[in-house]
Structure formats: C-alpha cells, structure tokens
C-alpha cells in the first residue's frame, strides 16, 4: 500500500529565509508525486508535480522539489520565503492499479514571521 509521511507538523521561519519541507513516500515502483498548498479557508491548489525526467521540478511562486528515488523522498524547497507563503502544504502520491486513488500526507503548517 502506498503512504506519505510528512514528519514536520509545523515549521516556523523568518521572511527571507530558505525553506525545506520534508516528504517521504512508500510505493513499490515509480509513482506520480505532488505538492499542494492550502491557504486558510480554501481548498488545495497544485504547486508542482513529478513523474519522470529531471528530478528537480519547478513549481509556482518559486517553489521547487527534488525527487530522490534512493531515499524515497520528494522534499519541497524555496530559496527565500515571503509572509504570504504561510499555509499548509501537502505532499501526495498516486500509483497505478485499477483505481488511481491519491494518498495525501498529513500536511505541514508553514508559518512565516515578517
């Protein structure tokens, strides 16, 4: 069965600092991997996704993620955060099989102090 672990429930950083949000997945094979962001009182929105090719994938608003197969990780990064990046970030995985059910991690709440 596929699973996603986001080990940090909450991350606090200062504006302008760099950021890494961690994600590890469990899946036998090559899955599709996603990062979504949820702003307060809103639904989730896609930041970026990866399946194949360059293991570093670029997303919206300066976010990027790196797929490291040997470590089963797909960490999200940003070079310099802004207070508006404060939100909850979800890592997700989808595998093959007959139903393509996506699995989400529990999310990491990012707080950016001005």
């Amino acid at each position: 069965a596929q699973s996603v672990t986001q080990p940090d429930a909450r991350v606090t950083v200062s504006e302008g600092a760099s950021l890494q949000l961690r994600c590890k997945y469990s899946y036998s094979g090559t899955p599709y991997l996603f990062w979504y962001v949820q702003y307060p009182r809103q639904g989730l929105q896609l930041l970026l996704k990866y399946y194949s090719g360059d293991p570093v994938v670029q997303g919206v608003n300066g976010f990027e993620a790196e797929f490291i197969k040997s470590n089963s990780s797909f960490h999200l990064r940003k070079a310099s955060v802004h207070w508006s990046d404060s939100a909850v970030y979800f890592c997700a995985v989808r595998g093959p099989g007959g139903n393509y059910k996506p699995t989400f991690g529990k999310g990491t709440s990012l707080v950016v102090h001005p």
Partner: protein
Amino acid sequence: DMKVTQMPRYLIKRMGENVLLECGQDMSHETMYWYRQDPGLGLQLIYISYDVDSNSEGDIPKGYRVSRKKREHFSLILDSAKTNQTSVYFCASSLWDRGNTLYFGEGSRLIVV
C-alpha cells in the same frame, strides 16, 4: 472556467438528521472525489467516482454514501449524521490519468450537534 463548487459551505445539523453535500465541476472531468479533513489527520478519502454510476469506496466510507448521476455533479450523503462526522469536507475532480492534477472545491464545514 476550471472551478469546483461546493454547497453548502457551512452547515449545522443535529445528530440523526440526514445531510446532503453537493459538488459540481465545469471541466468535464471523469473522476471526482470526496475527502474529509480533520486536524492532525490530513485528508482522508471517503469515496472516489470514476464516472456516472461508477463509484468506489475510499479509505473511510463507513457512514457515507455517494451519488453521481451526471458527470459534472457528485453528492455526498450522510444518513443519520453522527457527532464524529463533524469535519470539513472537500470535493475534488480530475481527469482519469493518474498524473493529472486534482482540482479542489473550497470545502463544506459540517458541524453535527
């Protein structure tokens, strides 16, 4: 316009009452989903629908049922709501391929008292 619309956005019900949450999308997506979101638990998949009248249980289907009679519309029904069904419910849609993005609605906050 690439939008998923959920109604109602907020709902208070008494224990034992029936609840209907409705979701619509304008993207002709084949696949639609219902999730619930609770603090510390993230998103849990309740049901997935692959097209009209083609529904499949997710990870936590107990206490819920769904209906999909038109591709653009997917309903979540709680027959005799329970207090532990108090949650925020999200509907999402996507094209069928596993690489395709899920588009989410803004959520329906249900309180069962």
